[in-house]
């Protein structure tokens, strides 16, 4: 957990409105856990004032120069352009100076080996699932159920496949894979693998539906949430969600940034979770 002043290695559009950014990120390959995130800042830029939170898609080593130096570490972010900050990000180039605060938060618990694992990703919510799959494939069967509104929202599926993950795509408009919601697919898979553990990240309505399905079946579920964040480190209390024991007299708030973004579904008070998306579109 550090603030790194670093540079961008590459920044490319991978699907309309979706970008992949590779960043020089010392220590991340060793330290970053699946489900953790960074607070990203364009150095010296204002707006945006606040940093923007992004999940870590993947960490690795840059192919070493033949200079005898130890290889350099990088991370990849995948982001969707939605507002003022991501609009500025899409204009960035190799060599541009940025800052990363991270790796932050609590990541996924990898679960028991040999268990069936079902990952459910909605749109950009698939980002934190890649590193998770990377670790899990060593000792479990991993299935990725990937949903989106339309085909453009289905990203990096081949990369999951290359890991050996079985992938199932569904889109609401049927433009890619099965037509309909990803939760339909989830129900079918859970019928087939009733003891599987589920891991999910995506838009709030999807997470909510996934939670209902898992709760009704007693399926173990880990969810990665989004929330508006100012600090990312548990100091501002902007990003709180209500824990299962919460009451006004005995407030039990959890910080999405620090106690999350990954929670076991049982930790949260689902009846009082905000159902609207964190999306604050065009606030500034």
């Amino acid at each position, binding site marked *: 957990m550090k*603030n790194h002043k670093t540079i961008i290695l590459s920044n490319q559009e991978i699907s309309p409105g979706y970008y992949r950014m590779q960043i020089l990120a010392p220590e991340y390959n060793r330290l970053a856990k699946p489900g953790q995130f960074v607070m990203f800042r364009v150095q010296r830029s204002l707006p945006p*004032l606040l940093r923007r939170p992004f999940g870590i898609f993947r960490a690795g080593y840059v192919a070493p120069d033949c200079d005898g130096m130890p290889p350099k570490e990088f991370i990849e972010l995948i982001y969707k352009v939605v507002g003022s900050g991501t609009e500025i990000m899409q204009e960035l180039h190799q060599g541009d100076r940025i800052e990363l605060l991270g790796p932050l938060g609590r990541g996924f618990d990898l679960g028991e080996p040999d268990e069936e694992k079902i990952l459910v990703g909605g749109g950009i919510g698939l980002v934190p699932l890649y590193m998770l799959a990377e670790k899990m494939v060593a000792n479990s069967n991993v299935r990725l159920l990937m949903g989106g509104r339309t085909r453009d929202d289905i990203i990096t599926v081949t990369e999951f496949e290359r890991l050996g993950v079985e992938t199932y795509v569904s889109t609401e408009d049927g433009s890619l894979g099965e037509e309909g919601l990803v939760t339909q697919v989830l129900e079918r898979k859970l019928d087939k693998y009733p003891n599987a553990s589920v891991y999910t990240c995506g838009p709030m309505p999807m997470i909510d539906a996934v939670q209902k399905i898992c709760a009704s079946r007693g399926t173990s579920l880990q969810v990665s949430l989004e929330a508006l964040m*100012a600090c990312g480190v*548990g*100091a501002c*209390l902007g990003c709180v*969600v209500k824990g299962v024991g919460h009451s006004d007299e005995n407030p039990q708030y959890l910080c999405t940034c*620090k106690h999350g973004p990954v929670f076991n579904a049982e930790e949260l008070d689902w009846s009082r979770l*905000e159902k609207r998306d964190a999306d604050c579109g065009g606030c500034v």
Partner: protein
Amino acid sequence: MAETKGQTVKMTRPKMAVEIAGLQFKNPVMPASGTFGYGEEYAPFLDLNRLGAIVTKGLSLNPKAGNATPRICETVSGMLNAIGLQNVGIDAFIQHKMPFLEQLDSPVIVNFFGNTLEEYVEVAARLEDVPGVAGLEMNISCPNVKHGGIVFGTEASAAHEVVSQVRKKTSKPLIVKLTPNVTNIQVTAKAVEDAGADAISLINTLTGMAVDVKTRKPRIANTIGGLSGPAIRPIAVRMVHQVVQAVKVPVIGIGGISRAMDALEFLIVGAKAVQVGTANFVDPNAMATIIDGLEEFCQYEGIEDINDLIGTLEV
């Protein structure tokens, strides 16, 4: 011209220490309450012992739930927050948070508030004998539940009374933090000085609001929130300037400070110290950079003691 100055000064390090209400600060930079948690959150990013002081999140008698989410929202060069003063309560603070803070070199200032006069007094009383609490900062920007929800700090008489009562119960240095949402800040400043404040800090956030034009809802659940960040700095500098003219007690400047240059504006108009709030979110190392920048500025301008800079505004 500045360059000539830069060339001629001896390179001894300027004295950076300031004193406020008997408290010694190694430099005039400290966090603003509510933007630095209970200190420990920022320990991984910043040597807390470099700071002039630590100022805690605002504490109340009982744990406080705070407001519904969304609680924050970015605005142009600023942010709105309506955290609703969520905190662990004074007892949990003393038990779980003080042990970490107590081992630091930097003096610890505990920010607190109440929803009634009695609650203010009670919290101050409980802090009286807690070891490691160097001073208190009293946030009077809270609605007075007994008096129709009018904010204590917006009525000079209410401010005077609550500060007087707290003053009776505490022997610790008492800093009173003013709300800027008033017609005449000098009036409240004088009232709290008169009531026994040892120092005054300002500004707290300005009330503001933002609307999501697509959903037609306020961007924060509480509708109205507090505006902070660089956007408000000119208002903060003006108010600190006015308060310095009006009172004799030392003043701590707060509002939109992100860089040493910003802190200097406050010191030049007469603040003896500054607090850094929103900038901590943007850069967790901001205060260290500001401290370094202040020292460099003094060196460059040939100022041997930062106290020689304070209040040097030429009007």
